[in-house]
């Protein structure tokens, strides 16, 4: 069966985002960019399913500017077989990305679509669920374990209060949580191999999707700063401060 994996190019998880002085957004010029960590987990899961013989082909998809090719090459270095870039310089919001992915799902007919549960830039946590709704597919979000047998997937999900397991009829959409797997390091030979893999580019117009943003960002500002705290020398002082100054215990 085919698996389709969606990957997003975002500011690296170890970089602290800086708000632009004019309040128009976050400064991403000259900042290290990487694959969204949850999407890396999604690619890794697809590759493991291929290594188990469940999945036969992995298609990685990224939507955005031309530089997303780098993200697709990384996905192919982890083990995706080919890549599709939906190239657009427009701001792509989750509903637009879900529609683009839906068009590709119609075309490629994957049995499994795996995405990260959220991107660490806009923190939306929407695209997988939206895709599932648009394609009329069942979904399992926040997955920490995936098992595929026949035409069913059994997925353990991280939910409030613990874990739950649900069974989905394939085709289905799965979004990954942190503990699904630990992505492998990409090796140099695999990076070289990935350069030779097929990478197609399409436009939103080719897929017949209107990607015009629905939400307008009026401004982006710094969060309120916490007042500077103090260091206390010992536990007794700490307890005294909590009781008599902060009055929280």
């Amino acid at each position, binding site marked *: 069966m085919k698996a389709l994996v969606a990957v997003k190019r975002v500011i690296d998880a170890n970089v602290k985002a800086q708000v632009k002085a004019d309040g128009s957004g*976050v400064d991403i010029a000259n900042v290290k960019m990487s694959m969204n960590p949850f999407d890396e987990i999604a690619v890794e899961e697809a590759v493991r399913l291929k290594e188990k013989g469940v999945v036969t082909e992995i298609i990685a998809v990224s939507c955005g500017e031309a530089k997303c090719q780098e993200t697709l090459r990384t996905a192919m270095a982890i083990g995706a077989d080919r890549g599709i870039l939906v190239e657009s310089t427009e701001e792509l919001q989750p509903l637009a990305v879900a529609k683009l992915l839906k068009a590709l799902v119609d075309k490629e007919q994957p049995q499994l679509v795996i995405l990260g549960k*959220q991107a660490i830039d806009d923190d939306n946590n929407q695209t997988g669920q939206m895709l599932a709704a648009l394609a009329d597919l069942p979904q399992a979000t926040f997955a920490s374990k995936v098992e595929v047998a026949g035409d069913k997937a059994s997925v353990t999900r991280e939910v409030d209060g613990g874990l739950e397991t649900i069974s989905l009829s394939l085709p289905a959409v799965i979004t990954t949580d942190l503990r699904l797997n630990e992505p492998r390091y990409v090796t140099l030979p695999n990076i070289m191999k990935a350069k030779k893999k097929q990478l197609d580019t399409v436009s939103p117009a080719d897929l017949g999707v209107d990607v015009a943003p629905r939400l307008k960002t*009026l401004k982006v*500002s710094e969060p309120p700063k*916490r007042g500077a*705290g103090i260091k206390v020398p010992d536990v007794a002082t700490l307890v005294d401060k909590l009781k008599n100054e902060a009055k929280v215990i």
Partner: protein
Amino acid sequence: MTVLVIAEHDHATVKPATLNTVTAAIACQSGDVHVLVAGANAAEAAAAAAKIAGVSKVIAADSASLAENLAENVAAQVLAIAGNYSHILFPATANGKNVAPRVAAKLDVAQISDITKVVSPDTFERPIYAGNAIATVQSADKVKVVTVRTTGFDAAAKEGGSAAVENATGVADSGKSAFVGREVTKSERPELTAAKIIVSGGRALGSSEKFQEVMAPLADKLGAGLGASRAAVDAGYAPNDWQVGQTGKIVAPQLYIAAGISGAIQHLAGMKDSKVIVAINKDPEAPIFSVADYGLEADLFTAVPELVGAV
């Protein structure tokens, strides 16, 4: 127009997250606030929702298909009544986040995730980049589908309302997904998102045994909820639903005590709105000290037991 709140409940009671979401709904200033209780044998939860101050109507949809919060069925239930509303608000819980985008996509509208403030009926504030920036966004869509970060809004009063309860026909099962089982983390302690005090442990604890041995007595003494950093959860020292951070639980208790947590930006994103933050760490350079009201540079294995004895 009217605002619809999707209740978080366990069929018998309404979860606190619903109360914060009702407050956000009132802030939308779009008229009445209705609450949907989609469940199975959930009359008690519906009755509890009807008592929430500020709610004018409760819609109770009762069906076996709604027993386990399957996203496909709950979304269909919301969509069945969505036409009557200007705003549809979900708490940003695991359930709310699971269902809301399905509803938005089917209505062909954007979703506004994790709002922390209602600026006007069409404009909202929401944190992005792990809370390192706050975006003010405006929606031009006819229906606003929103998830509400509960720490951004006070809880509405549980009592004082007397809404009418109206029954709605429950949806049929989608047939595409099925509930298999649940592994609940058993705890007598308060839930993290509702706890007044949280004590949280990091990787420095070294093992799940040590985590329990050192952190649990402090939580017990303070009547606190127990939290953990991602590193501690990944290492298996604490269960997944204890994780505080950007992609885990977002908490804002009166007192947050972080022991052996260095303070990665992803962790700070989940707790920096706490009223008072205490950091106990032996590394003077640990970033957690930059957000702490009271920092104690000490080995947690001696400081935490000493704290248990002193409070």
